[in-house]
């Protein structure tokens, strides 16, 4: 049985200061879990308690990382059957998801949907879903997503040191690279978008953040726009080309690589449903064995333990790190 959600956060509000001799004051309120995105420490505790996989969303600014997260929450809001063969069994980060979804909701009063981008100053944010198979044959499963601003990745492109700071990449069970397919398809942006994606992957390999044990999913995002521009047949050819391209590049370098077109939040006239492509991914992330249980031979770098992600990784998988004595 999974441990209860949101248990860890409950604590009494600290007592206000009182004068010597005053009788003890009972706390007026008892705090409940915040519902906001988890800190690295909270995420670590949750992962340890539940054995949930950690999915890291990577990609440049505007590639759709936060929109994908918001859609994973939104996709469960509209049908009793849930989404992708799963039903929602709760979340420790409901408020965090809702805030991310708000600007795509009618309640926001906005004319066009968009998602609040994750700021660099937000640091690293973790979101949690608890899901159960629709048939109720298995107990509920937990999954944790790590989101951070695309600026982190842009800095990592410029600096090996910055890349080595992102030790969360070595810790993630699934490294998910989001590439804006609508830019890949457009002549003006194609070369830059492809080069940036390839460079990020290369940097990850060179700094040993990814290796032969890694599982990599390359998501071609905003697929609805590609379909609208090219039509189904040409979009299929476009996809097949990139499937071959990425397979040729990475199949020998990682445990497995998949290339999947997704449309997390299709534009209103699109025939694609909300969360197109994400159902199968969710299933894969939840069903595949976790990296720690199948990769005893992974070669890990020895990072400088300075960032919050380092601390997170150290707590989560101390055996993978050489901690300096003293």
């Amino acid at each position, binding site marked *: 049985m999974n441990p*209860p*959600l*949101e*248990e860890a956060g*409950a604590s009494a*509000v600290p007592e206000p200061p009182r004068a010597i001799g005053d009788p003890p004051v*009972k*706390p*007026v*309120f*008892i*705090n*409940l*879990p*915040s*519902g906001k995105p988890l800190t690295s420490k909270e995420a670590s505790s949750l992962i340890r308690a539940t054995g949930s996989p950690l999915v890291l969303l990577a990609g440049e600014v505007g590639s759709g990382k936060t929109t994908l997260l918001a859609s994973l929450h*939104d996709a*469960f*809001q*509209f*049908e*009793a059957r*849930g989404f992708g063969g799963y*039903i*929602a*069994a*709760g979340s420790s980060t*409901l*408020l965090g998801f*809702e*805030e991310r*979804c*708000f*600007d*795509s*909701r*009618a*309640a*926001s*009063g*906005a*004319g*066009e*949907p968009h998602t609040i981008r994750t700021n660099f100053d937000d640091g690293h944010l973790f979101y949690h879903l*608890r*899901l*159960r198979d629709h048939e*109720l044959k298995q107990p*509920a499963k937990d999954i944790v997503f790590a989101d951070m601003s695309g600026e982190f990745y842009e800095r990592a492109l410029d600096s090996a040191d910055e890349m080595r700071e992102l030790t969360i990449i070595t810790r993630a069970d699934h490294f998910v690279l989001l590439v804006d397919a609508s830019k890949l398809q457009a002549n003006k942006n194609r070369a830059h978008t492809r080069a940036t994606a390839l460079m990020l992957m290369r940097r990850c390999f060179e700094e040993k953040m990814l290796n032969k044990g890694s599982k990599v999913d390359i998501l071609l995002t905003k697929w609805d726009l590609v379909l*609208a521009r090219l039509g189904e047949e040409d979009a299929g050819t476009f996809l097949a080309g990139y499937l071959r391209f990425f397979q040729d590049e990475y199949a020998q370098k990682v445990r497995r690589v998949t290339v999947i077109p997704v449309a997390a*939040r*299709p*534009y*209103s*006239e*699109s*025939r694609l449903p*909300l969360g197109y492509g994400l159902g199968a991914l969710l299933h894969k992330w939840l069903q595949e064995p976790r990296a720690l249980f199948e990769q005893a031979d992974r070669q890990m770098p020895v990072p400088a333990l300075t960032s919050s992600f380092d601390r997170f990784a150290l707590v989560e998988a101390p055996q993978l790190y050489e901690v300096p004595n003293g």
Partner: protein
Amino acid sequence: MASLRKLLVIGLPEAGKSTFIAALYHVAESGEVKGSLKLKRISSDAKHLNALRREWLKFEHATRTIPDAEQSVSMLLEEPDAHSIGEIVFPDLSGETFNEDQWRDRHWSPEYEALVNEADSILLFVHIGMVREPYTIADIQKIAQAALPEETDVQYRSESISADSKEAKAKTEAASTIEGWAKESQETDSIHWSADLVCTQVKLVGLLQFLVPYVEKRAPIRVGVLLSAWDLEKVTEKGVRVDPYVWLSKRLPYLHQFLRAHEAIFSTQVYGVSAQGGDLEKDQDKLAECEPASERIIIQGAQCAAHDITEPVRWALGLREPA
């Protein structure tokens, strides 16, 4: 003799909690509904219950319970065969306690925590006319395109709009609410996110999640979901309303999923209930013709006899099963 039984009553503001208690008290005390639970003895302190009942009998809206006026009410109930089932306690808490203290401000009082620890069962109220939907901007754009086809040139419009015309109709009905939001937006430039603006089903899941660590050890705990203002649900050509369970699955699918996923913790039964029986302004003359007064009550759900608003309590307390 059975001892004290406690029902935890949960609901957002104006969800119908107090009106339900008023009608329940009337039915139990008056004995007007055959087969209902009955009041064995009037409580020594019946002031709050009597006030609620008086408003109900006079077709007045129940005075909203405000945080400072929260109190527990208790009824000593018995089965129709005079078998006592003991004293049932209903904390009549304000919706703000749930919407603001718990959901928005993320805390509850030690007294409420004690209630959670002691509760035998839960009654969860949802006003079907006050559901905040999670509609996306894309949904609204589709509705607009469907309404104004000549102004759009949409390649996939016919495929993208739901084939289910009933669903489209339901969304169109909801459009008036959304227009209100849009108007609000124009007046205020933009609406900033706050926890208050979260849709109803997510809030209710959030409130239930808080309970899980407390009730899990004595699971399953019964949760009666009461869909209040059930008179608003249209009667079909066959003369019946939709099954309340089906309503829940269609209108609050996220809550429905959560309850299903946690069926080992929350044993759920869904009821449609209109304690007032109709709109107090538009339908008052018709409601006043009901004789006895309990006949204005609408209740729908498993094993519900006509007008027997005590049935959800009976189910929640497990009184249908042999001792």
